[in-house]
């Protein structure tokens, strides 16, 4: 042992050149991936921006014209506006959200916090996922059969709002469900360990935590509802009676708040004038309506996001 004369060179377990080559290769790959991903992201942004700019610039002359925004549409002459359609779109959106937010919030809380984990719950969750990808024309035809014909509500705002609710609830439900599931379990445990009930824990701890995600979900679903046409063609109808904002007689078809009157929305209006419109300026009207629709959704998003941030700041003190 002690008499080894020639010191042996340490075995080269690692080849320094190979290590350098490996590191350089990894760096090259990382750089290439960054370039490719940036290019893809950039291309998507450019595409989206181009679409937005095109829609808005094509319709700009009409979209910023107060007369176009307030006057009723024309059947045969040029110079028609989109006043009633604009109002109808917002009215339907608000009604839909008023019905669908409480329902989906309650259902999501039940599914996440209360429902036992058994086959019924799993079947319901699967059903929701299937429903959330249901084509909207199917929802529209179902609404036509059930609300318009079976319930004899005719083409009306209430039929449209309920069809949109059916279309919206699965999406909203899934978003809220995911938002609640994303709240760490230890927040739940902390509430329960302080002697609070499951309901108190949900309302005072979990919901405030999940609020930013819930608000984002509501905004996204609201955008879809606002731009929805197929589900409304057969439920809310394609005619827009001239509205009289001084009327509060809820049986009068001219009363804007009357939920039993037919109500064409912006998206349906675009579809209608392009498919069966005979007005001479139909391209201009269509472009203008599209621009107004896009601007409304944009504005709605920005406002809701701002309000959401304020609310979440207030709830979480961050």
């Amino acid at each position, binding site marked *: 042992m002690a008499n080894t004369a020639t010191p042996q060179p340490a075995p080269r377990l690692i080849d320094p050149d190979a290590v350098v080559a490996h590191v350089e290769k990894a760096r090259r790959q990382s750089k290439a991936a960054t370039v490719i991903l940036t290019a893809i992201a950039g291309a998507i942004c450019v595409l989206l921006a181009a679409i937005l700019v095109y829609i808005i610039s094509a319709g700009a002359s009409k979209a910023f014209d107060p007369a176009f925004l307030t006057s009723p549409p024309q059947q045969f002459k040029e110079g028609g506006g989109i006043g009633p359609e604009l109002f109808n779109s917002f009215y339907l959106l608000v009604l839909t959200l008023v019905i669908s937010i409480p329902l989906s919030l309650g259902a999501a809380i039940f599914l996440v916090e209360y429902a036992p984990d058994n086959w019924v719950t799993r079947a319901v969750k699967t059903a929701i996922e299937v429903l959330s990808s249901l084509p909207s024309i199917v929802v529209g035809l179902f609404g036509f059969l059930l609300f318009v014909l079976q319930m004899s509500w005719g083409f009306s705002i209430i039929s449209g709002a309920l069809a949109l609710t059916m279309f919206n609830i699965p999406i909203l439900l899934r978003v809220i469900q995911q938002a609640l599931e994303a709240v760490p379990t*230890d927040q739940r*445990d902390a*509430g*329960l*360990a*302080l*002697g609070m009930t499951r309901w108190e824990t949900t309302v005072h701890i979990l919901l405030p*935590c999940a609020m930013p995600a819930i608000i984002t979900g509501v905004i996204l679903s609201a955008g879809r509802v606002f731009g929805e046409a197929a589900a409304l063609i057969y439920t809310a109808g394609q005619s827009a009676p001239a509205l009289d904002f001084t009327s509060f007689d809820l049986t009068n078809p001219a009363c804007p708040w009357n939920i039993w009157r037919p109500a064409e929305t912006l998206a349906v209006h675009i579809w209608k004038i392009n498919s069966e419109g005979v007005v001479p300026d139909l391209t201009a009207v269509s472009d203008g309506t599209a621009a107004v629709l896009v601007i409304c959704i944009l504005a709605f998003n920005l406002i809701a996001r701002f309000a959401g941030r304020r609310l979440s700041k207030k709830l*979480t*003190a961050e």
Partner: protein
Amino acid sequence: MEQTKVNAPDAPSAPVSSHTQVAAARAVSKEVAIRSNGTGVFYNTDQQALHDVSLTFHKGEVAALIGPSGCGKSTFLRCLNLMNLEIPHCRIVGSIDYHGVDIVNEKINLFDVRTSIGMVFQQPNPFRKSIYDNVALALTRHGMAANSTNLDDQVEEALRAAVLWDEVKDDLKKSAWALSGGQQQRLCIARTLALHPDVLLMDEPCSALDPIATRAIEDTARRIADTGICVIIVTHNMQQAARVSDTTSFFYLGEMVETGPTERIFTAPEDERLQAYISGQFG
């Protein structure tokens, strides 16, 4: 399975007497805070995670539960405030005597029990709210504050009791999530203390903290016990058990193997499994 019952020689009273000696030595109350009797836990009707644990805890003492991972010490702790009932298919057997009521078998108000048996978790888990609201929330929910001035006072008192007041008194409206890990853990202690519990359960409260924050939590636990609260602390860290606790109970494979005054447990362990654990042969 090995059936050595070291704590059995003079049968059920054995753990009681050892704890009582320590309590007497520290000249604190001999009043029993909570006592478990043959407590066990089943998961899914057939998997028994905890066997027949009988331990008595007194007011004003710090009791450590030690043992390797998966030995059942946390499971036992979660029986004491019935948090195990939140786990589906989990069943507690035996009895737990708290103020003369068997909280396992009698019909009790779960929420009252958890109000007076507080719990601090392994990971600091402050609510995503302001520091003030973290403490005030449960107080408000339980209707324990007469008015807002009274609420302010109670929040301050709780933060002082958890030795956090001086660090946060100017930032009460800031988010609790912006605090350091150790501060967050003391905030969790504060919000529990705000409800005036007489038992405080701590489930490895320092395992996510650095040594300085750990020391602060240990000092806080000691102070809390000195105010007459029974502190039960689960730890996998033997030095920690030796530093803070008056009594120590060793758990192994779902059984409570040996219990006694901390000094005796570490200097003269009787059971060979405990000897092996203390000498670092497994962990």
